[in-house]
């Protein structure tokens, strides 16, 4: 299983990678910008993407649109500090499979990931 972690913070990217470490994941890519994420996703079509929203350059919601354009069945879990309902609803309407708020709660993250891959 291929995982793509998108966040402008390297601390967050590494924390997510450590939290999701399991035998099911065979390959992990990381991207610090939306632009890099779209390029990487287009090349590898990862099974799951975790995606931040507030990033320099292309924001996460625009990145989500582009990933969904490439693959309407993409499984994208938003992990964002933006804790308002409107943003979460917007992300789901645009094709996100789930929405988690920062600060990251590792058991919640693992559960959301498990639900995504079982889907």
């Amino acid at each position: 299983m291929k995982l793509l972690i998108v966040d402008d913070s390297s601390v967050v990217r590494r924390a997510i990678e450590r939290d999701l470490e399991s035998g099911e994941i065979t390959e992990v890519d990381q991207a610090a910008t939306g632009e890099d994420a779209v390029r990487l996703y287009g090349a590898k079509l990862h099974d799951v993407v975790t995606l931040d929203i507030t990033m320099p350059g292309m924001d996460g919601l625009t990145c989500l649109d582009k990933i969904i354009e490439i693959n309407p069945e993409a499984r994208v879990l938003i992990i964002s500090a933006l804790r308002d309902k409107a943003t979460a609803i917007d992300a789901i309407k645009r094709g996100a499979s789930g929405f988690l708020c920062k600060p990251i709660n590792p058991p919640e993250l693992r559960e959301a990931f498990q639900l995504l891959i079982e889907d």
Partner: protein
Amino acid sequence: MNDRDIQVFIACVQRYFESLKRDVTVVIEPPFIKDEEKPFLEYTGIIGISGKAHGAVCFTANGVMLESILSFLKEAPIDRNLICDLVGEIANTLSGNAREEFGRDFLISVPIVSTGKNVGFKFPPDCRNYVIPIIWQGEKAYLLVCLS
């Protein structure tokens, strides 16, 4: 800004530090107003705010506290880049979480990170500076809320 708005940020601080280590209490001292000379520590993450409010939210801390947080997050080795990354991410998390109360029109920028006492950010002159003192594992940090 009023007392209720400041309570929103206090709740965000509480949530953040509790997420790190439930058995370590975070102490949040009574907020105060300090319009002159903001109490910046060694590292500061600044989030510009626009939309519903204007100004900035800053999280400022010394390296010791930030290194403790990174250790808790199992980061090793710890370097200055990681510390800067973390202080920006904390500022981002605290500001973004405040949208639960302030809504989607409370627009937050990506973090700007500054080191040392002289922070090169233009704070709006018409804003009051609310300072929320935070003590975690014996180390002090501040959340500065400077909003109109």
